[in-house]
């Protein structure tokens, strides 16, 4: 007989204290169960889930999965117990089904838990919980400065069942003494334990002897279940609050498991713990250590990085030597990771970060038998359909839905006044989640965004997509927010983040907006392409201008817009050294920056004018852009006649290559032609300029000038003709006719001849 079995006190059942999500706990528990062969296993977990346990132990069920309960009424509260393969609770359920023994959950029903939770949400949080302080202090005292590592070294690497049992019990006892009465959920804990004691007593009363009962519970509760305090009485039981709840099982993922921290709720490195579990089963204490390092090496090699076997061997040696430095035989995750960084990452964590994420967290997703899930997000979805009066669109035929987001002034209640806006938010959220129920049709609306057109069509796939979205969040809103945040984290370019900000506006999610804005700020400092910055400025600027239709504050965007604008201003002059192809995009960029400055007072106009002036006068930039900058200045009234004349004379003087001069004129004529046409002096200079050119130069200039005038309208051309007529003292009518006349064949030929023109050094 194992020593573990002898720990039980007479007249009491076996009470096995565990750490949730603990491979060693699961392993030692199974060994205890094999030896005791109990008739019933009692597990800490909401007792109204006992029926669902058959699904949990089903052969088609593949962990990680979670049991979940949620309130039917809004606001939705949820409780969630995730199980991995190596959860002691899961192994207890599995063992009972394998051996046809009973297995019950004995904690308070989820209806009571959620009633407690709904009540607690109303009171303010009161700083750090005592138990968290204890964990933190434990971490500080341990040599590794981390209680996680301490746990792993002491508990997960313990090969003796008895050691694990006593260790867990001692830890639970000490934690209890240190925090007694200090945590805010302490009263709740006492009720839970009284309830569990009641369940244990009921089991004994039903005729099962204590030595055939095994209780599996968190280490903390061991003392609470052992002590002689009375169990919960019938009357007390009646007094417990209760709310209506829905219960379900749901597939879970390792990724989700790793993002929830803290005791019991999550596990930072599920895939690594899986290796520990395999090590337990193989009875090889160093299995996880070796596998971890080999897997990192394998991942690196698969992704094209060279890792020699010698490096892996050295990493194993270093990990063991690090463990030894702390007085342990087996390296913990921390040692392994540091060894991998030192030997395989050459001191640089970033080099192996992805391999580490893959090896520690992994991508496993659980699955359940079909039809078992009825998750809170499904519930939320149907509730919203009813609330927004959209239920009738839930059919297999495609239906159109037109929305008008403006406030309806004819209706009385606030709710129906904004019904379409709420609908729009909801539909956009579904769209972001990739749920095929909705599809968004673009509406052409000039400078306004209040009309939307949707096509709705229900399919069974949509239902599956909604269940999958549960992994992202408990409700449609939370899932959409999670999705966008994740996209924002992975989004590389500022344009893609700006897109997410736009999406958040469409979805009506201010919190996501500020989240994405913070990320935008971070990557904006690295943005180097002015065109991209300009595009981003443009889309943010639109959001700020038209955001009000969705009644969302765009305050958070202002600083980042200002920062992007500043960056664009600093980079702009340098980026204007480019060829004619690139100049097109650059001009578009300058145009959108100019628009932004016009619309937003907080963007410094002074700075913008200074930048434009610099571009307009510099000779070493693309002349077309210089001309365009001058055009903007002219339009804004920041360019006096004398200055313009000076520039015209300088740019269009003999000696300046014809293409550069004409290019400049082309840029200048891209904006406010009317102002140009009315300036007589301009035409005078142009005329004089052309006169100075010899034949070859004239041919060159002709090509560019032709392009510059190509998209002038007939009316504009006649106005120019008028000017020229005046200049040459000719009849305006006559000139206009000549200018607007289609080309004669002869002229056409000559122009085609120009196409073959040898541009030599251009």
């Amino acid at each position, binding site marked *: 007989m194992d020593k573990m079995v002898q720990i039980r006190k007479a007249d009491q059942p076996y009470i096995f204290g565990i750490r949730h999500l603990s491979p060693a706990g699961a392993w030692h528990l199974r060994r205890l169960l094999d030896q005791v062969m109990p008739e019933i296993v009692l597990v800490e977990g909401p007792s109204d889930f006992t029926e669902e346990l058959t699904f949990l132990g089903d052969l088609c069920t593949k962990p990680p999965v979670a049991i979940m309960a949620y309130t039917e009424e809004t606001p939705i509260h949820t409780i969630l117990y995730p199980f991995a393969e190596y959860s002691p609770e899961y192994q207890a359920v599995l063992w009972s089904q394998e051996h046809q023994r009973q297995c019950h959950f004995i904690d308070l029903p989820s209806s009571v838990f959620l009633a407690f939770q709904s009540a607690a949400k109303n009171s303010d949080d009161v700083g750090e919980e005592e138990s968290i302080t204890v964990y933190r202090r434990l971490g500080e005292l341990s040599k590794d400065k981390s209680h996680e590592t301490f746990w792993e070294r002491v508990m997960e690497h313990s090969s003796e069942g008895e050691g694990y049992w006593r260790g867990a019990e001692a830890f639970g006892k000490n934690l209890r003494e240190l925090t007694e009465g200090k945590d805010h959920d302490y009263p709740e804990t006492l009720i839970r334990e009284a309830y569990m004691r009641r369940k244990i007593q009921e089991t004994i009363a039903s005729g099962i002897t204590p030595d055939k009962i095994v209780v599996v519970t968190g280490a903390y509760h061991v003392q609470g279940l052992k002590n002689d305090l009375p169990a919960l009485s019938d009357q007390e039981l009646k007094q417990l609050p209760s709310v209506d709840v829905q219960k379900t099982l749901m597939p879970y993922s390792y990724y989700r498991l790793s993002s929830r921290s803290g005791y019991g709720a999550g596990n930072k490195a599920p895939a690594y713990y899986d290796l520990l579990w395999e090590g337990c089963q193989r009875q090889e204490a160093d299995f996880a250590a070796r596998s971890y390092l080999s897997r990192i090496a394998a991942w690196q090699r698969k992704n094209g990085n060279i890792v020699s076997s010698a*490096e892996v061997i050295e990493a194993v040696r*270093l990990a063991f030597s*690090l463990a030894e*430095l702390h007085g342990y035989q087996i390296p913990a995750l921390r040692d392994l990771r540091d060894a991998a960084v*030192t030997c395989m990452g*050459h*001191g*640089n964590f970033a080099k192996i970060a992805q391999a580490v994420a893959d090896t520690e967290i992994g991508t496993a997703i659980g699955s359940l038998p079909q039809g078992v899930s009825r998750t809170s997000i499904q519930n939320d979805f149907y509730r919203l359909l009813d609330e927004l009066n959209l239920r009738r669109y839930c059919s297999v035929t495609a239906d159109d839905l037109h929305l008008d987001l403006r406030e309806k002034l004819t209706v009385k209640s606030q709710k129906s006044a904004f019904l379409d806006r709420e609908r729009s938010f909801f539909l956009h959220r579904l769209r972001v989640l990739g749920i095929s129920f909705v599809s968004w049709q673009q509406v052409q609306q000039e400078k306004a965004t209040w009309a939307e057109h949707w096509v709705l069509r229900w399919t069974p796939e949509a239902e599956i997509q909604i269940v999958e979205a549960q992994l992202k969040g408990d409700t449609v809103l939370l899932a959409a927010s999670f999705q966008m945040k994740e996209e924002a984290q992975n989004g590389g370019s500022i344009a893609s983040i700006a897109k997410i900000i736009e999406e958040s506006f469409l979805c009506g999610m201010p919190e996501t907006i500020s989240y994405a804005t913070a990320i935008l700020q971070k990557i904006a*400092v*690295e943005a180097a392409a002015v065109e991209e910055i300009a595009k981003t400025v443009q889309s943010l600027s639109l959001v700020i201008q038209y955001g009000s239709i969705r009644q969302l504050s765009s305050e958070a965007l202002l600083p980042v817009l200002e920062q992007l604008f500043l960056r664009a201003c600093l980079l702009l002059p340098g980026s204007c050294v480019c060829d004619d192809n690139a100049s097109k995009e650059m001009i578009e960029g300058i145009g959108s920056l100019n628009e932004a400055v016009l619309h937003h007072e907080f963007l410094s106009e002074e700075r913008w004018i200074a930048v434009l002036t610099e571009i307009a006068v510099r000779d070493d930039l693309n002349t077309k852009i210089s001309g365009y900058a001058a055009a903007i200045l002219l339009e804004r009234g920041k360019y006096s006649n004398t200055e313009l004349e000076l520039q015209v004379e300088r740019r269009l003087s003999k000696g300046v290559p014809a293409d550069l001069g004409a290019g400049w004129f082309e840029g200048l004529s891209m904006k406010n032609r009317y102002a140009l046409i009315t300036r007589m002096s301009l035409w005078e200079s142009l005329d004089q300029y052309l006169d100075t050119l010899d034949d070859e130069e004239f041919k060159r200039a002709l090509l560019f000038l032709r392009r510059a005038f190509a998209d002038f309208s007939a009316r504009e051309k006649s106005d120019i003709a008028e000017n020229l007529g005046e200049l040459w003292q000719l009849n305006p009518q006559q000139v206009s006719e000549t200018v607007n006349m289609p080309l004669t064949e002869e002229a056409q030929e000559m122009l085609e001849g120009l196409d073959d023109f040898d541009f030599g050094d251009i």
Partner: protein
Amino acid sequence: MAAETKVQRLPAEQMFQKEIDALIAAEKEPIPTGWKMSPKSVLTYITGGKVGKTVITPKYIGHKRLVEIAIATLVTDRALLLIGEPGTAKSWLSEHLTAAINGDSTKVIQGTAGTTEEQIRYSWNYAMLIAQGPSPEAMLKSPVYHAMESGSIARVEEISRCASEVQDALISILSEKRISVPELGLEVPAQKGFSVIATANTRDKGVNEMSAALKRRFNIVVLPAPADLESEMDIVKTRVTQLSENLDLNAKLPEEEVIEKVCTIFRELRLGATLDGKQKIKPTTGVLSTAEAISLLANSMALAGSFGNGKITDYDLAAGLQGAVVKDDDKDSIAWKEYLENILKKRGLKWSGLYQECKELNK
């Protein structure tokens, strides 16, 4: 003591003789072959603590885990490579590691562009070589050779400054753990306990890339800049005080606020984010090491002492910062202007004077 005081700087093992003796005397743990104390005691020696009544001063502050990794590496007889930016105490750490492990930190090869392969292996006393032919007496052993014979640790400073072919002379020594002397028909195997600690610079100019083959023979530990503002300010303050005593700068020591400003700006530009982590910043190409912050302040003191009223003003500081941050690159100038507008401008009254002065310089 009288004789010692004439020496400008003593090696670590003599400077901290008492501490090393106390640690050896109190040793309870097993000692690896060739070592003077156990790995745990080495850790105590470097990171500080107490042995009996002797207080062990911390030699390397912060990043204790990195020291653990370094020591564990040496236990596995692997060679150790300390990499870091200038001024991150690489050589300091390597000196103290060897002082504690061997009681001897003087087996050093200083890597320069002129270091030859002979300096890493062995060379000859040519007069004797010509007179007597090759003989053990005519051989000049390198520090690495000595370390192999005695089973101790040799140091190679600034290894990346050596030419690549010279660096690669270490490859065979580290993998075969023996050195051959064909002239004498000798094969000298390394004794247990032999290892090498090398240091290398990452961002300085004039360094040679290390070959992958050589890198693979080292366990690499990257030493970061000081962990937080407080510790960096401490380091700066101590060093500036020492410097001003030595140099007779004739100015008041910089106020806490001035040191804080300089360290804050340096740290933020170095890390590429504001200290509260809320805003990202474009980092500059320069190193902006703690050592530079120290010289900037000393320089400002010299300015203030020679041309001002002896008190460092924002004007002095701005000139120093401009020179330190904007080296020769246009990009640095843009990054610095962005930093001024996005960060400094919005920092409030305490910073507004400095902002104005810096802005003036960037008009």
